[in-house]
């Protein structure tokens, strides 16, 4: 019983489905820095960086806040399929 606890991989990290985003593209188009966007949506600027690089998937609330800050709709910003180039 006790041993079964240690059968769990100690450093395992569950693989998540990737979420693609155009946050950086729209942020730059609006002339905002990461810090300005972060302040607008109430997160740390590194969180915006991780999010733009696809290393973090935001909660629905944060996605909605980012969409509002960038004056876009959530599906324009986030997708579970890669965005087409130039779109």
């Amino acid at each position: 019983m006790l041993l079964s606890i240690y059968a769990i991989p100690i450093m395992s990290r569950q693989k998540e489905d990737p979420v693609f985003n155009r946050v950086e593209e729209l942020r730059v188009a609006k002339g905002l820095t990461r810090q300005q966007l972060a302040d607008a949506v109430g997160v740390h600027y590194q969180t915006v960086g991780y999010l733009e690089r696809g290393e973090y998937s935001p909660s629905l609330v944060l996605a909605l806040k980012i969409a509002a800050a960038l004056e876009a709709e959530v599906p324009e910003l986030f997708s579970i399929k890669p965005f087409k180039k130039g779109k």
Partner: protein
Amino acid sequence: MTTGDTGAKRRSKFFWFEGVTEAEVLSSLNDTRPSRLRQQGPRRTLVIAMAIVLAAMALIAFVTETKLTTYLEFGLIAAALVLYTLLRKAVRKISDAPDELLDERQIAVRDAAHTVAYRVLALVGSVTLVLHLVLRHPHDVIAAAAPADGTMLLIGFVMSAAFLPALVLAWNLPSEQPEA
């Protein structure tokens, strides 16, 4: 946002459970200066160094007490504290910060680190305890190697418990990128 400038006039709140002040956490979170410590390579080097120091602290308990081992013990404790200070800087004190000072990503990575740290601590603690009990058996031929007292083991365990979330976080976090 909690990571914003709180102003110098405001008195810094002390979080008793986490053992940090609001000012020190915010100062670390708001630090935009580039630091090599926040890149994954140097951070992982710190983690390995700390793991070696903690392992040495546990092993030295089984060495016969001499003047040299006493100096070594103090040296290891000092090294652990220095490395921990650097590790906390490397992870922006996220591992010790309370919810109200963090955003949703930071809370998620902190909680994930605490979960892994608990598992590691349970495993290492159990193995150390079993080893200690085996070595202390009075009829065992290796009884002479048993630690005279468990002070260093206890210090090592307490330090491991305190440092492990920062170690796990430092190992797992990707490298930071410049602000702009």
